[in-house]
C-alpha cells in the first residue's frame, strides 16, 4: 500500500511517531517534513528497521520516500 503524509510544522517526536504508525501495513510511504531533528530521527528509525530511504535535497523542507 502507498501512503503520503505531510508532517510539516510538527515538532519532535510527533513526526517520528506518525511515520512509524503510517508504516504499519504500508510498504511505500512518502513523508514531507521541515524539521532537521525530525528528519534525522526518521532516517535513524528507517535504518534501524531496514527500510530504504530516499531523501530529497532541501534546505528548509524535505521529502522522504521510505520503501520496504
Amino acid at each position, binding site marked *: 500500500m*502507498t501512503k503520503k503524509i505531510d508532517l510539516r510544522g510538527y515538532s519532535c517526536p510527533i513526526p517520528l511517531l506518525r511515520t512509524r504508525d503510517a508504516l504499519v501495513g504500508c510498504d511505500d510511504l512518502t513523508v514531507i517534513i521541515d524539521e532537521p531533528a525530525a528528519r534525522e530521527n526518521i532516517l*535513524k528509525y528507517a535504518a534501524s528497521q531496514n527500510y530504504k530511504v530516499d531523501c530529497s535535497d532541501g534546505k528548509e523542507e524535505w521529502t522522504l520516500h521510505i520503501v520496504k
Partner: protein
Amino acid sequence: MSTVWVIVAGLAFGLGAVLLVQAGNPGNYGFCAACHLRDIAGALGIHKTPVLQYARPEIMGWVIGAFVLSKTSGEFRPRGGSAPLIRFLLGALMMLGALVFLGCPLRALLRLSGGDLNGITALAGFLAGIGSGIIFLRNGFSLGRARAISGPIAFAGYLPVIFAAALAAAVAAGASFLYFSTKGPGSQHAPVLISLVAGLITGAIAMKTRMCLSGGFRDYFLVKDTSLLKIYGLLFVSATVANMFFGSFKLGFTGQPLAHTMHLWNFLGLYLVGVSATLLGGCPLRQLIMAADGNTDAAICVLGMLAGAGAAHTLNMAASGAGVPINGQLAVAAGIVVTFAIGWMFREKALVEATV
C-alpha cells in the same frame, strides 16, 4: 551522531559543571536549566526570594552559543504558532515540578554524580513521566503545526538571543535594575566571564548534538539509538570522577547541597517534568536551545518557565532544603492532573492524507 561529538558533549557538560562549582557556583549547581532560570526570574524581580536572585550567565551563554551555531550552519529558522498558550502553561508546570525536586533532569544527573542519591528517585520519576507522555503521543496528542515565519515578523525569532545578550551585558555591568543576592545560593557564583564562556561552549554543543534527556530515552525506546544517552552516560561518569577528584563527592540521601529527602515529591516533581517535557517535545535545556534556534513556541515555553518560577516562589510552592511545602505538594498533584487533561484533550485525527 559521531562518537567524537558524544565524547565532546559528555566531557564538556560533565567536567564543565564540576569546574563551575569549583569556580564559585553552589554544590551540584554547575548547570541547571530550571534552577538557573529560577535565579534569573529572581534577578528580574519576578519573584522576591532574596537568596535566589542572580542572572546566571550560563543560561544566556546557552542561548547565544546555540544561536551562533544555528545561524552559521544555516539551520536558524524563525517559526511558531503551535498552541503557544498551552506551551506557556506546560512550561510553568515543568518549572513547578523541577522546583519541587530542586533541579531539571540535567541537574538530577549532576546531583547523582556528586553522590546525592535523591537523583535516582527523581530520575525514576522522570522516566515514568516520559512513559506516561508517550502514551498520550501514541493516542494522537499534538499541539498542532507550527509554521515558518517570514517577512518583517521573522524578527521575533531573534528576540531570545537579543534578550540573552542584553541580560548578559547587564549582569556583567552589575546593572541596577537587576536584583543580586547578597547571601545564600544566589550570592554564590562563578565569575561572569567564566560562566558565560562555559554556557557559550555547551550551548553550541547542545545545539549540534540536539542534547535532550527525554529525547535520549525516547530514541532508545523507539529506535534503539543510544547516542544521546551515551552523552549523558559520559557526562555522569566524568562529573563523578571530577567530583571525587575535588573531594565534592558525598554518597547518601541526607545533607546534600540544595536538596531535600522527601522521596515521593522528588519522584512526582520530575514525573511532572517528564510528562510536560514529552508533551512539549523537549526537556528544559532543549527548550532553551530551540528558543535560540528561532522556535518562538519554545521561547514562549521558556517564558512560561520564568512565570512558573515566579509563581512557585511567590505562592510558597517551591521546595527548599527543608522539604516541599504543602502548597507545592498540592500544586504538583494538580499539575499532573492538568498535564493529563492537556494530553487527553489535544488529540488530532489521523494525518495520512492520501492512500492509494
